[in-house]
């Protein structure tokens, strides 16, 4: 009599794995890495390497201390490492990178139960921790392409910082002309000041399209997030399209909307929830950019919406198939 393997159904499963999804995200982040190296030099690569290494090591050590299964094989710590580095200026001291990585992985991710259990995005929170701890280092941005000319420590203002000087009550077009902003194509290709992975819009869009094509992310969150910012900026800029475009292509909006707001663990599951989440991110980002003293608000917006996510999930829980009818019947009875 033969004895065979017995398991519950289903007996076949798709080839998708957590590791595979993380690998797809890493692949999608590569164009921005290439752009960062071209724009800011090889130190960009160094920052990414240090960030990834510290994240993976922190994950390994924290799991070890907690006597839990080693999970670095799922590559999620690598993704966090890359994203954290992308949120940092290229000239940031490396020990700060390590500090940010430990905050992101040990505190935000592992202390709350590891992958899938963290309630805020680790990379975003790591960035916020660094921003409030080392505001100067975190807001000193290298001039794009300056490294190639051998010019050391040339810094520049980000377009967002320049834009924040605009008085929205006055003539916006005239004020923008006087600001000596980068050209639109410089904005699009990332030849602007900013964190090392956020500047190159085109590279981030390529990554986003790749993730969409691979069904890793749905476009709902990025579209509703960026769309909301676009609408608000258009209204705030009294219909000035150029003002809106500068707002969209500068700062962390693309990086945040495509790669961080779409983080599974910290964004809603249902379609309706994703739309609400994206709109919420867009509103908070715009409010911070327009009305606060901070030039940028993407990180805070995503973190706040991360916290609201369980509530959004609860109110947008899809109804089981056929439920609507039953309710009608009850109402009739």
């Amino acid at each position, binding site marked *: 009599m*033969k004895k065979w393997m017995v398991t519950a159904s*289903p007996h076949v499963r798709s080839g998708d794995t957590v590791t595979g999804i993380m690998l797809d995200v890493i692949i999608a982040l590569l164009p921005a890495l290439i752009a960062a190296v071209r724009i800011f030099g090889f130190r960009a690569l160094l920052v990414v390497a240090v960030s990834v290494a510290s994240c993976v090591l922190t994950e390994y050590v924290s799991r070890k201390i907690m006597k839990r299964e080693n999970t670095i094989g799922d590559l999620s710590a690598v993704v966090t490492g890359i994203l954290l580095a992308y949120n940092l200026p290229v000239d940031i001291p490396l020990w700060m990178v390590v500090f940010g990585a430990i905050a992101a992985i040990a505190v935000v991710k592992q202390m709350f139960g590891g992958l899938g259990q963290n309630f805020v995005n680790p990379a975003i929170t790591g960035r916020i921790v660094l921003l409030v701890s080392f505001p100067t280092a975190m807001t000193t941005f290298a001039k794009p392409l300056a490294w190639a000319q051998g010019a050391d420590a040339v810094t520049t203002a980000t377009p967002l910082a320049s834009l924040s000087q605009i008085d929205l009550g006055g003539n916006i077009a005239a004020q923008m002309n006087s600001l000596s902003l980068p050209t639109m194509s410089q904005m699009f290709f990332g030849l602007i000041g900013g964190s090392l992975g956020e500047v190159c819009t085109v590279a981030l869009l390529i990554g986003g399209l790749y993730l969409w094509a691979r069904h890793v992310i749905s476009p709902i969150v990025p579209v509703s997030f960026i769309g909301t910012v676009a609408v608000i900026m258009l209204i705030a800029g009294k219909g000035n399209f150029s003002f809106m475009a500068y707002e969209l292509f500068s700062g962390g909006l693309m990086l945040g909307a495509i790669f961080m707001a779409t983080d599974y663990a910290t964004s809603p599951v249902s379609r309706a929830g994703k739309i609400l989440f994206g709109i919420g991110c867009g509103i908070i980002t715009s409010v911070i950019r327009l009305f606060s003293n901070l030039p940028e608000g993407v990180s805070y917006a995503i973190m706040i919406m991360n916290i609201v996510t369980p509530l959004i999930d609860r109110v947008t829980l899809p109804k089981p198939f056929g439920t609507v009818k039953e309710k009608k019947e009850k109402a009739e009875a």
Partner: protein
Amino acid sequence: MKQKLPDEVRKPKARARGGVPVAHKKGTAESPVRRIDPPSQVVIPMLQHIGAPCEPIVKVGDHVLAGQKIGDTDAFLAAPIHASISGTVKAVAPVVTVGGRRIVSVTIESDGKMEHDPANVPPHVTNQEEFLAAVRESGLVGLGGAGFPAHAKLRFPKDAKVDTLIVNAAECEPYLTTDYRECIENSWDILGGIYALLEFFDFKEVVIAVEDNKPEAIETLSRIASTDNKKDNRIHLMALRSKYPQGAEKVMIYTVTGRKVPPGKLPSDVGCAVMNVASVAFLARYLKSGRPLISRTLTCAGSAVKEPSNLRIPIGTQASAVIAACGGFASDPYKMIVGGPMMGFALYDDTVPLTKQNNALLAFAEDEMKIKKERACIRCGRCAEVCPMGLSPVFIAEKLRKTKDPEELQALGAMVCMECGSCSYVCPAAKPLVQNMREAKDMVRGMKKA
């Protein structure tokens, strides 16, 4: 690959949500059904349907004929059981059956004659009541897999106005090709069965539903459907999108009619009846011959089977005899499955008998059945995306881990789950979501009893 379908073939009325693109692997599609020689013995369980088990009405030492009734009950939700070969009753004792339940079964040793019971004569049917009684006597249960007694399915509640009969030929599970062969080989029986049903029921419309990846079946059936003139063009053919679980009853009703069966309700509540295509064809043969359900077609396939084929086997044939009829194993099997790979049951040994509901016996080598490493849930939400019933297994599994509160589980819709396996199939973290759903359902049922 997709051919243009004849014009009269209807398009689905609605697009069902969710589902997964499971590989079809219908390698046996072109293998004609072959009748196997009666095995030396059959083991016939007294429960081969949803409902109450039958009581055996034969005892050890009795000589029985093929088609002779050997089990019956007074319960409404049941179908009588007949001997599938002629021979001597060797044992009446509990046997472990597909799915692991121990069920009283009648073991018959063949006399090699395959003598049919002369009492099996075509039933005399003139009205609906007689028709339903005859259907009960035939022992027919849903041949698609669930095994719902056919007479019970057709006995609609008095106030229900059932206007649509759906003949389910979707066969959405991988590997399975018996319904496909039924369409190709016995298409006139299908039409005959539909005619019989139209005679006794007031269906306004009969829709034969086939997945659009089976052009040959669609062509054959559309020829048949178009010969129907005397029935006021009530018979139609519909080509459905081939996506698992297209053949699931509620999904089928929605795509064919656009009607949604609410949770806890029956198809008749939305005016529909769904019957498997092989069940309908059986009805035609039974009304002509009077021979009850004592054999069925079965796909035997998978990488570990030497000669994958479609077989007609006597009910109660043991798995080992079916494998032997397919040339034995090509390689040492790692896993044996009765039914499709999405909803079927794994076997632990080859003495298990195959029953009325079992449409496939699959044997696989290890490389095809590798178990994915389970990881932490990343909340990707794919389980919710693919759930044809609109549930969010991610939240049900989470609730099960945390509070185990049956009321909350019910509020999340756990009872609506039909265990199609789409969520587990798609889960990148290889979570046992179907088992979670079963556990949740058990807890809700427990609460209702208490």
